[in-house]
């Protein structure tokens, strides 16, 4: 995974409360066996509407997405994160995220930034004309209008994102501890 320090660019002002993962990537695109190419199915129902934000030339090349409350709710499909990767989205800002989606995003190097609704509303407005900056080190979202919004992030996730760490490799380094747990389980709970 490539390390993330700062993310700067235009942001797609989607908004939309309860944007579920079926909306992000409908099920008929899930019949794939690789992680690539899902951008073409991303937000299909929204993109079928004329004048939608995803096809607006104003936001061409945008690398940030601004969503609404409970972003990424519903299905656990990691295809939602892969579709955002494929669209070139590096960060999503929203008032809240579903637990599963935020984990999936993190594991694919997408930064999820939780900000209060009024801050998100302000960014939705700014995004219409100006780029937005996110600095992970200082946990700060800024705009050319001197807006400054601090966000919280789990320290472990922050460290992994800053350094681009591979979680499976890190856990495998604890193999001894896992084996010891398994031995104890074989005695304590042999039915498992």
């Amino acid at each position, binding site marked *: 995974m490539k390390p993330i320090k700062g993310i700067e660019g235009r942001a797609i002002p989607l*908004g*939309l*409360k*309860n944007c*579920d993962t*079926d*909306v992000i990537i*409908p*099920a*008929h695109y*899930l*019949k*794939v*066996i*690789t*992680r690539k190419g899902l951008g073409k199915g991303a937000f*299909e*129902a929204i993109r079928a509407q004329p004048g939608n934000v995803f096809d607006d030339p104003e936001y061409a090349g945008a690398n940030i997405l601004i969503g*609404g*409350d*409970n972003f990424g*709710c*519903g*299905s*656990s*499909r*990691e295809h939602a*994160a892969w579709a955002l990767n494929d669209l070139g989205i590096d960060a999503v800002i929203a008032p*809240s995220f*579903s*637990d*599963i989606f935020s*984990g*999936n995003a993190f*594991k*694919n190097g997408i930064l999820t930034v939780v900000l209060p*609704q009024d801050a998100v509303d302000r960014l939705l407005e700014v995004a219409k004309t100006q780029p937005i900056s996110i600095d992970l080190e200082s946990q700060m979202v800024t705009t050319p209008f001197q807006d400054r919004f601090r966000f919280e992030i*789990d*320290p*472990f996730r922050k460290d992994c994102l800053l350094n681009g760490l591979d*979680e*499976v*490799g890190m*856990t*495998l380094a*604890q*193999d001894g*501890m*896992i084996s010891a*747990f*398994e031995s104890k*389980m074989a005695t304590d*709970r*042999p*039915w*498992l």
Partner: protein
Amino acid sequence: MSSKPRTLYEKIWDAHVVERRPDGTCLIYIDRHLLHEVTSPQAFEGLRVAGRRLRRPDLTLAVPDHNLPTTARVGADGNRLPIEDVDSRMQLAELEKNVAEFGVPYIDAVAPEQGIVHVVGPEQGFSLPGATIVCGDSHTSAHGGLGALAFGIGTSEIEHVMATQTLLLSPSKTMEVRVEGQLGKGVTPKDVVLHIIGTIGAAGGTGHVIEYTGNVFREMSIEGRLTVSNMSIEGGARAGLIAPDDVTFAYLKERPMAPKGEAWDKAVAWWRTLASDPGVRYDKSIVIDAADIAPCLTWGTSPEDVVPITGVVPDPASFADPAKQAAAQKSLDYMGLTPGTRMEDVPVENIFIGSCTNSRIEDLRSAAAIVKGRKLAANIRQALVVPGSGLVKRQAEAEGLDRIFTEAGFEWREPGCSMCLAMNPDKVPPGERCASTSNRNFVGRQGPGARTHLVSPAMAAAAAVTGRLADVRKLEPVA
């Protein structure tokens, strides 16, 4: 061991900590891992690329369900019929290749035990109380009905579990949903959970694990508990839990993969210690009076959009939150509904009885009780009954339920996820309406432009025979 009272969730969590880190994050051991064809291929590929093995195939079980057509799988010559859709066929072939290569126990597409992963796990006794259970599917929360800590994971986490049999997790907050009292006539476990989601909202449980408490759940069958816990995720909670009790143990005893003999006795003894301690504190608590729950259904495109069947389509202006007002208006446009319309006046063309929420034997019995002696209404274009597993199907056939459905005009199908998610041939056509026993009424969930109303099996049956959304309490059984 601390003497502080602990919740069921905290007891299961504590029993699975491999390593507790200073920031509170824990490496949690995973007892059971369920796999299906859609979310696993990239995880197997990840192992292969990194040259890693699958650590515990013996704690893993794979079964295809999402993609499989629900039409006949074996031809008249006894040979397996190929899946027509090329991508689905390829995904299934990939699963078969992967389970063979990594030595994963596999229930194949034509095995009598095949079914929806969340029906198969409990039915086989693979899912057990007090266990940590994961699957690359958000409705893994279902297994919490047995008192297991069960939750959906993404494909990167699947790969992590495959390689290490653990997950790195932060503890969730706890939320108690207590339902006390007497459920009214026609009110099923599905109505209970829809009512709960309508009350707490689609993000009401985010960051929390819900424990369902109160006499209503204690008196509920395992099938009902699985239905309730299944939909925890629709309230934002990654997992739901119901304390294991004698009802749970009676359900699991003698299941093929459940412990036997001395191991069973030892397991039950431990399971009995898991219930939340008296006087325990939850981070959040809500109490619902069972008498306030009516047979209900959804009107919009979020599972929180719940009204009693006697209610009307709400006016978006009636919501306090401006974001909800906008979302409600969008929902109504998509659903083709006008505020003030009585739900009972809304005609439907499609009926789906199935999904990991409502495809177990009790669900089929409850729908059949309404259908018996009646016919599909003339305006119904498609009505499917899709049992959750081959074993449910055979049980239903032994009870004659299949004939009740087919004589009324329903199609009786092979087990699978079917019309819940539009990734196999079972879909709701654009602009048409479906009374569905599934779990999600999202935009496009049952097919592009499909309009979903989530209901109980009995209410789906009532809609089938009346041709509109209908109050099951007004339909007396036909003798």
